[in-house]
């Protein structure tokens, strides 16, 4: 069995701050990490490998420094990792990105048939959740999104049964392989890198595929040209109108609270039932 995991390097959005003077993002010093959902995708692939054997390949599109996330994947024990990197890929939106990754996966498939593709449910920098389904559509295979559990993998019949996390309930669905899954964090707990894998990761140099490695790639579908969406404007989040601070909260909390409650009831914000 050959499992491919798509992983992305992202800025740690928890560390991103906005310069209040200029309203621009302060990116300096913001660490780059493996997209947290993708880490769970790698983990799930490794669990399947532990159980059923086979091979796990991680693929990432990004600038040369994105090799770091591949190294991290190696430290989790994956067999191989490929970086798709080319200036011509820069500026790709989700449509172009799914096209490029699909080309990469097809190339892997030629080398060794791919049975399962696992992605994180979304990347925390863009939060779009569009790339995984985009790949599934392009490969014309089933997409199973928001997977919280792999219920059954049947290698004889080549089917997979999963639980999808929906609002307030879970859905059990079955699909033939090859299929593409996107996973939520609930699916597993991440493992720690073992020492031998850490050593392997430290020495690891990822294979880099660029545009020229894909003779059939359509230049109209990659990079800025292949991206229908464009950012028109960046602006600070909207502010709400001036609020009213009820005075005396520190000195006389009972009085301040009484004033507040009276306002809420009088203005029928809280209705008297």
């Amino acid at each position: 069995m050959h499992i491919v995991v798509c992983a992305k390097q992202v800025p740690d959005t928890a560390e991103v701050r906005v310069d209040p003077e200029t309203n621009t993002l302060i990116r300096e010093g913001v660490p780059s990490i493996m997209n947290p959902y993708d880490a769970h995708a790698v983990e799930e692939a490794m669990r399947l490998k532990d159980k059923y054997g086979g091979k796990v390949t991680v693929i990432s599109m990004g600038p040369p420094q994105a090799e770091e996330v591949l190294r991290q994947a190696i430290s989790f024990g994956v067999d191989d990792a490929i970086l798709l990197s080319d200036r011509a890929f820069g500026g790709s939106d989700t449509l172009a990105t799914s096209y490029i990754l699909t080309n990469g996966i097809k190339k892997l498939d030629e080398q060794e048939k791919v049975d399962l593709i696992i992605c994180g449910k979304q990347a925390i920098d863009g939060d779009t959740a569009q790339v995984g389904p985009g790949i599934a559509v392009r490969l014309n295979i089933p997409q199973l999104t928001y997977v919280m559990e792999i219920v059954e993998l049947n290698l004889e019949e080549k089917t997979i049964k999963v639980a999808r996390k929906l609002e307030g309930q879970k859905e059990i669905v079955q699909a033939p392989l090859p299929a593409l899954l996107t996973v939520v964090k609930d699916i597993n707990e991440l493992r720690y890198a073992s020492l031998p894998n850490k050593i392997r990761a430290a020495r690891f140099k990822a294979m880099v595929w660029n545009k020229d490695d894909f003779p059939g790639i359509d230049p109209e579908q990659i990079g800025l040209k292949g991206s229908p969406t464009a950012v028109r404007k960046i602006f600070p989040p909207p502010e709400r109108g001036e609020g009213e601070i009820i005075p005396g909260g520190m000195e006389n909390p009972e009085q301040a609270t009484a004033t507040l409650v009276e306002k809420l009831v009088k203005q029928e914000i809280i209705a008297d039932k």
Partner: protein
Amino acid sequence: MAVEISKKKCIGCGLCVQTCPFDALTLENGVAQVDPDKCTNCGACVEVCPTEALALDEPQKKMSKEEKEQVKGMTETAREMSEELTKYKGVWVFIEQLEGEVAPVSWELLGAGRKLTDKLDTYLAGILLGDGVEHIAREVFNYGADKVYLVESPVLQHYRTQPYAEAIVNLSKKYMPEIILMGATTMGRDLSSAVATKLGTGLTADCTELDIEEESSYLLQSRPAFGGNIMATIVCRHRRPQMATVRPRVMDMPVYQEGRQGEIIREELGLSEEDVAVKVIDFIKEKGKAVYLDKAEIIVAGGRGLGSKENFKMLEELANILGGTIGASRAAVEAGWIGAEHQVGQTGITVRPKVYFAIGISGAIQHLVGMQTSDVIVAVNNDPEAPIFNVATFGIQGDLFKVVPAMIKEFRKQLG
């Protein structure tokens, strides 16, 4: 030695950018910009500009025959492209239903869609897919749609990506809408991604504001980016339909007009069960997880300031008196004081109650994005600098352990 751009005349349509054979033009802040090192003064952009915003600053340099041909080809494609775009008309809203029950975000989107159609002077339609769902069409009209595109089939009984996506792709190819909107729900996000990829068009996820740019008629799709730290407006210039998913409970509900009439356009799915590889086996309701925060009209939410699990009881008492539901910040959830199903915010639930009480919550951006469209926000915090006060309608700067018991007492008194 480069083309000159009149910032006044430029409407940022991007045709020149698309046309330039030398990649010398870009759009910055919605206005064309030229890179003089790349510009060869070929004039291709001047040809396509619809507002004559571009002019050559010196006589055209001699072009080779090849270059001329190339420029001519580019110009033609650009023209065809802009003509092609004007063929797309109408704003469509995907009506998300589960066993006949419609997700409220669909109605909110009909409200938002109506504002767009008013600016575009076009029609508003609902896309209704399912098995035996025709009766819902009436509701769709009552919430403001002029048309309903209806596809019914047993294959569509439960949501599955492939048949739903194919149905919408076929409708879209046939009737050519300008805009398709869906809720940013699990279903909407799953479906919209597949549809957009099949149609080869742009899709913006999780929008919180929609508008139409007057000069270009582009859909302006605004959404929080980088964990809510900043907002970005996205446009899809050259492909149609323009597609967006929109967060639930951000747009206002439209006025319900009983007895409004509309046109139903029925289409066949053209798929049978054998054509669909994915099978739905079962649905399992999550036990005890149904807090329905998203439907609550009053939410009493607590944060790290509460200090312990014990102290959440105080909030429960207050919530009981008000008929409210308990919410929480992630800090409170991570401390183990309350279940994750109560978490409000970026990685929790987006809520829009009539009243939101934020008790001992600082108001981190990730929390604010989940509750700042609440009608009224009441904040209790002892730190006058807490960002929650920036979004509060009413605030008390004080110790919650004094204020909350006083609230309980006062509300009891006032509400009997």
